[in-house]
């Protein structure tokens, strides 16, 4: 096996209406970003259960991003406000568990903010690269 440079695996949950569009715009605008993200599209960020985040970490994600529409722009009136409440508890819990704060992010990205999406991915990838593989990564998963 050849030694390649380790790139982190990042799971990004994107809402159908804003941040997934943002990821699309980033691609169309040809903003450079590392191929470290695995995007999971959900209809609304409110659908993201803390359970999904746990599962991502346990299955080997080095970082998890929760993204959605800006507050007030939710396609489903207040879905992202619900995300915010859940995220607050989730973040507190994972920090207490001993996970580095840089491994979990919440960000609001609209469909037109392609550059913002690309920059966000760049930043997170750089930070996680410094941190190294997640302590929750199972043995044998790269």
């Amino acid at each position, binding site marked *: 096996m050849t030694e390649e440079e380790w790139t982190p695996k990042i799971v990004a949950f994107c809402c159908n209406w804003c941040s997934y569009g943002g990821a699309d715009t980033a691609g169309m605008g040809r903003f450079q970003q590392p191929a470290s993200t695995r995007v999971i599209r959900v209809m609304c960020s409110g659908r993201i259960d803390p359970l999904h985040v746990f599962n991502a970490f*346990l299955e080997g994600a080095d970082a998890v991003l929760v993204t959605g529409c800006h507050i007030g722009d939710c396609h489903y009136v207040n879905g992202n406000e*619900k995300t915010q409440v859940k995220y607050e508890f989730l973040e507190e*819990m994972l920090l207490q*568990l*001993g996970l580095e704060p840089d491994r979990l992010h919440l960000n609001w990205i609209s469909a037109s903010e392609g550059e913002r999406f690309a920059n966000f991915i760049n930043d997170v990838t750089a930070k996680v690269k410094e941190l190294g593989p997640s302590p*929750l990564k199972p043995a044998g998963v790269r």
Partner: protein
Amino acid sequence: MVEVGDMLVGYATDENIRSRGASGGLVTAVLAAALEKGLVENVVVMKHINEFEAVPIITDDVEEVLASTGSLHSVPVNLAKYAMGRKVAMPAKPCDAQAVIEQGKRGMIDLDNTYVVGLNCGGSMHPVTTKKMLIEMYDIDPEDVVGEDIEKGKLIFKTKNGEEKAIAIDELEEAGFGRRESCRFCTLKIPVNADLACGNWGVIGDLAGSATFCQVMNEKGAKLLGNAIDAGRIEVQPASDKAIAIRAKVNSVMEDLGNTLEKEIFPDIPDEERMQYYMEQMEDCIDCGACKEVCPVCACGDDAKCTMFHSLVDNYKMSMYHMVRLLHLSDSCIGCGQCSDVCPSDIPITLLQSRFAIPSQRRRDYKPGMNLDTPPFFEVMLK
């Protein structure tokens, strides 16, 4: 008539109940009267088996209520789940009362029809630890024990042949026995969240040992106590200022002790070592699910999200089941210690859980199970 906020000292009128029940039999008499007068359909009481074992029973028979066991320090069962779907009156430690209210918030218990007679609690002990302690510290055969009591910080055991032996609780706890860990850092000693707050703290003078101090906390409590007086089951008199002061003093001493011990029980773990700590603690888990089964604030039922992840294939480095529970209970855990008690692998689950729940609740200036003004956080904010 009894009014909300009244501080009373009372005892059962029936000589038999008064001498049998602990501290004047007031609680037993109140429960019996509630049943007799049809205020409730059932009463939850503990049926005595021996000094280390009692089973909760739901009964509509007054005789069984009268025959129930008094306070047992080594039977730390939480009664909240027995009140579900029934019109009951029940005795309750502060943590039972907390659990009843938490269940009420989640629509599992009809609080209007549930009467909670709170009992002061300085802490309870695990029966297995108690037996071991009797052999090692007291040099008494557990089979010979006929009674126990806590007085002035000392734990007293009485044996068949009339002997008494007392050892200070501090000393016992230093030796690794004594109260359960969850009771050591608990700071809710007087059940101010119940309908009636009863206990022997603040009973002084001639009545000491044969009467109960009783504070009426709300309308339901007034109704319950008034009912027992009307039925002729109990007699009450207003508590003196001195008695009230003594009760408050005992309470503040216990609270301070709880706060001091909390710092000892939860030493700070540096950020980078915490993950390792939790992994090591949880690696013995056999996924039996007993901790969820006994949890008195869990209202999810059989199809709970956490139990979907019981299988070991979901637990790569950490148990998914526990991760879900750690998050889910961070706003509702009352630290009652039931989960640690039943764990077959002896994982100190309550301590792990509290490390998440206590900071989370403090940050929001919230204590679960105290009143209905602050519903569960997820529910409030998700409306």
